[in-house]
């Protein structure tokens, strides 16, 4: 990946973090930590990888994304807004009775959302279904499912993993936002996931591990996923919960907490300084 494109993606992701945080702050409610950790993954997907058209959000040939960790809707909404699916100002309606930008993604009302999610564990099944339909109809679209690591506690994920391998849906790529944390603490304490790489491989999936904040590495992994034939791919993207805001990084209590005014001002300051620096480097 060209340094210029890396630069552009970094700028977009930082804008996304700012947008997501402002929405959560304004709503005084929402999931901060996981929205920040998944932002780089969603940015690479929507600004580098996926074939989508904001003018035709329901194009049957489009690539599809299921944000199975639906509580991180602020990140998805921010990326969709920046990609042009709806006005950036709409972000201010997040979790508000005056809009339809629900706490968890709603495919009926929000342009660009391909599946309603929020109940953890269900998204990968829907994504397998989309991939199966693509195979049946000889379509070239690809399907992406973004999962939380805590979400992998759910048995349905592994049911879907078996089905994905059975039906050889190589048009499906799952990405795990592997931030090592969930609500009650670190995943190793709440429910140890063990050797995730070996587990997915044993379920018949092509497994790739990357730094989930490295745009070039993510893009490369997505290319490898496309090249892998006969089985679906899972990318274990190692991330930092709360990424981009110093005092939120690796602090699990930021999972579902909104920043107060003071905290928001500090976070905004940090992200804006980072954005300024990126924009200057880009000149």
């Amino acid at each position, binding site marked *: 990946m060209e340094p210029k494109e890396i630069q552009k993606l970094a700028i977009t992701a930082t804008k996304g973090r700012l947008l997501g945080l402002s929405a959560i702050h304004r709503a005084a409610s929402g999931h901060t930590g996981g929205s920040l950790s998944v932002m780089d993954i969603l940015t690479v997907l929507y600004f580098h990888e996926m074939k989508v058209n904001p003018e035709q959000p329901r194009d049957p040939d489009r690539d599809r994304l299921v944000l199975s960790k639906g509580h991180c809707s602020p990140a998805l909404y921010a990326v969709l807004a920046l990609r042009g699916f709806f006005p950036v100002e709409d972000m201010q309606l997040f979790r508000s009775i005056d809009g339809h930008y629900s706490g968890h993604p709603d495919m009926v009302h929000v342009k660009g959302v*391909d599946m309603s999610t*929020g109940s953890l564990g*269900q998204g990968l099944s829907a994504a397998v279904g989309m991939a*199966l339909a693509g195979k049946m*109809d000889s379509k070239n679209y690809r399907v992406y499912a973004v999962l939380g690591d805590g979400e992998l506690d759910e048995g*349905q994920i592994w049911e*879907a993993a078996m089905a994905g391998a059975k039906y050889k849906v190589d048009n499906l790529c799952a990405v795990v936002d592997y931030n090592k944390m969930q609500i009650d603490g670190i995943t190793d304490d709440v429910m140890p996931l063990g050797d995730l790489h070996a587990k997915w491989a044993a379920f018949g999936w092509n497994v790739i591990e990357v730094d989930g904040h490295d745009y070039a590495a993510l893009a490369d992994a997505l290319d490898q996923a496309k090249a892998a034939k006969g089985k679906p791919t899972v990318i274990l993207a190692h991330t930092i919960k709360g990424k981009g805001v110093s005092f939120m990084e690796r602090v699990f209590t930021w999972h579902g907490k909104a920043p107060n005014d003071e905290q928001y001002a500090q976070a905004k300051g940090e992200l804006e300084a980072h954005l300024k620096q990126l924009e200057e480097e880009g000149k």
Partner: protein
Amino acid sequence: MAGSIATRAAYGAALIELAETHPELVVLDADLAQAVTTCKFAEKYPDRHFDMGIAECNMTGIAAGLATCGKHPFTNTFAIFATGRAWEQVRNSIAYPGLPVTVVGSHGGLSVGEDGATHQCTEDLNNMRVIPGMTVVVPCDGNETRYATEALLNLNAPSYLRLCRMAVDNVTDEIPGYKFELGKGFTMRDGGDATIIACGLMVQEALKAAGMLAAEGISARVIDMHTIKPLDEELVVKAAQETGVIVTSEEHNVIGGLGAAVCECLSLRCPVPVVRHGVEDCFGRSGAAKKVLAAYGLTAEVLADKVRYALTLKKS
């Protein structure tokens, strides 16, 4: 047609017939394709059939994904697993986004027989009815099942179809003017003293009960209420106004199913006494299907008694 057939078998045949003209129709199973009779579809249309193994939640979620891409999936398993194990998947992945999936619960009710309480689902109508936007259908015989399957396929919205294991007599094809319309009950027999509103295999029992009552000079109307939701409120209210008392009859808990739906409607629009005939809030047990039904009072005789009792409550 006459004769008898289980609704699950009529459904399996209907799928094959409809597949020809409906390329969007796909079928999902959870290791019960023989029991649900979808195995014949699998043989004829292997590319449109997916066996997900014993994983009902995943089957339900995959159906949702297929439905977002223009397919109309029918998911198949026993009613207890379809509406119990996978309830939340039906609610959140299918109903909330309004996707065209028909959840099929075979082996509904006590007439499962020998498998006993763990497999006898008497809560499914309640479970599905309470989900916003769900259409809930219980056909009474093979003929009606064929029409119901087609109607739900054309509905293009979330739906639940409850089927039974036991063979039942075909009755609808012998009623002159019988027509299946989703959301519209069908008056199988007219009567002015009381109305029996039944669904599923209790429709046959209701017709028998009405015959017994007629011999005593009691004229009972019989309504086949195959669509539990949306309920045909006009027909229910009309029956309440004209006959003054209602007896509901279903192979389901007396809580939460057809009887409850009728009460909810009448309490507001035309409060008359309603006697609910069904499973009295208890679990079933093993036995030959007909014997189990009899042990729990799901017979024409007990239903006729309920009507006699209902008449004593009638306000004159």
